[in-house]
């Protein structure tokens, strides 16, 4: 199966600043692809290029295997999108907003009620959208993206500004899309934890560059666990270990050492015991996804 989204050395400059650099994204059928990056990483810029709203400075976008630049309208029939904050005519009702898009695309009337119930806005459909909560506006935007029965949904930070309940609701909704409706999704976010439950694949972008692409489990394997030692007199123990060449950090009264294998761990325990420190705990600590994310994106900055 070919890629639904493929970008080839996608690059974009704003003035002198290179905002997106040599991006090679691959999003396959049936995936929820989490497109992650801190603020200003270039997520929205990339998404705008995926939709043909702005042009790449270099490189190209292929959707459904076809170059976007000369098949724009053909491929966009299969794509639904929500870019940054939702678009809505505040003076119209939710239903009328969908009707505007329905008319533009010449879709059957029934679609409106279908998408309204999909995002559970049926009750609020005849209220003016300016009276909607942010979560409702966000859901209306998703409804509008689903109107044309897309095969691919591109959502730019759909949970931005929502409360935890709202985030959870949208997250569950997105997770169901591939299985229930056969819709693949690219969803951007600046929180890895948010992706943990819903994304099957992630791409991490930092300062315009893709620094990781793969499954979440691969991402977790990439980072070595740390070992935590609970010892009596940790300060003194740290000195002793450091004098023997170990990189030891002291946090909240406990010693932390990065990337030890079994042998090394045993050596350290042995050393501590011989020096008459009481060792009451040795524990392997896997970094949380958030720590991995911060470490990945933090390292880049120090280069």
């Amino acid at each position, binding site marked *: 199966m070919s890629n639904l989204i493929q970008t080839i050395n996608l690059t974009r400059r704003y003035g002198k600043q290179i905002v997106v650099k040599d991006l090679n994204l691959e999003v396959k059928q049936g995936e929820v692809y989490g497109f992650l990056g801190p603020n200003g990483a270039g997520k929205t810029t990339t998404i*705008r290029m995926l*939709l*043909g*709203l*702005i*042009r790449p400075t270099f490189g190209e976008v292929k959707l459904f295997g076809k170059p976007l630049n000369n098949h*724009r*309208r*053909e*491929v*966009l*029939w299969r*794509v639904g*999108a929500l*870019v*940054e*904050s*939702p*678009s*809505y*005519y*505040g*003076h*119209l009702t939710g239903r*009328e907003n969908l*009707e*505007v*898009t329905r*008319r*533009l*695309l*010449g879709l059957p009337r029934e679609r409106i009620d279908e998408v309204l119930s999909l995002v559970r806005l049926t009750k609020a459909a005849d209220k003016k959208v300016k009276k909607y909560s942010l979560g409702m506006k966000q859901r209306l*935007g998703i409804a*509008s993206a689903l109107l*044309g029965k897309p095969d691919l949904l591109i959502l730019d930070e759909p949970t931005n500004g929502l409360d935890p309940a709202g985030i959870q609701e949208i997250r569950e909704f997105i997770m169901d899309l591939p299985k229930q409706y056969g819709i693949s999704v690219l969803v951007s976010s600046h929180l890895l934890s948010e992706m943990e439950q819903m994304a099957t694949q992630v791409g991490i972008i930092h300062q315009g560059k893709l620094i990781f692409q793969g499954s979440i489990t691969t991402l977790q394997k990439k980072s070595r666990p740390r070992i935590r030692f609970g010892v009596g007199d940790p300060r003194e123990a740290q000195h002793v270990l450091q004098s023997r060449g170990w990189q030891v950090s002291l946090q909240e009264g406990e010693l932390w050492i990065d990337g030890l294998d079994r042998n090394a761990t045993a050596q350290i325990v042995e050393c501590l015991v011989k020096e008459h420190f009481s060792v009451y705990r040795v524990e392997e600590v896997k970094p949380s996804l958030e720590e991995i994310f911060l470490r990945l994106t933090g390292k880049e900055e120090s280069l």
Partner: protein
Amino acid sequence: MIRLLAAERLKMKGTWIPILLFLGPIGLILAMMVDFGLRKEYLLQQNTDNWTVLIGEASMLLPLMILLGATLLASLLAEMEHQASAWKHTLALPLSRFKIYGSKGIQLIGLLIIVAILLVLSFAFLWFWIDLGKPVPWDQFLKAGFYPVLAVLPVAMLQLWLSIIIRNQALPIFIGVVCSLFGGIHTKWLPWAYPINAIPIDSLEKNNPAFWVPVGIGLGLLLLILGALDFSRREVKGG
């Protein structure tokens, strides 16, 4: 294109646009009622026919009103999209950008034609209210309503383009108002002079609607097409 226009029509629902259409013609009626109410005898004693007197008085107001009306309508049609952050949504749909812009232009032309019809009715109303006698010059009402409105098309299309490419509407409206006030004073050739050039009145020197109305329509359509071409190749970086 029909679909796009149907969407345009729905978007106007509940906005100021329909009210604004009536504002100009009502303003004209009120001004003329006051004018003729106060000095009907004096006005009608000039040795021209009654229609020439009416259109002569109206021509003090009509061109400026049409220019400002076109500026405001263009701005409202664009502001609706800016405020909705709708461009990034609409332009990511599988639609021709040329047609998206074109439908805005046609919508604006449609609204101006409604204004023209209201002006025709206003002249008829004034004729009977002031009691200017027979024969009733229906053909003149038609010309007086439609000619200056058709001649405003170049300015309308220019304002539409400005209002769409500039987010903050203060600037295009400022440009529109300043040009409406001063753009037609020194020359007949700038588009801001076309509405007055196109008023069907014999006493105004060298007034030649037969020339200026086709020029207005032609240049208006040309500017609509140029605007649509420019719009098609623009990037959508913001809303």
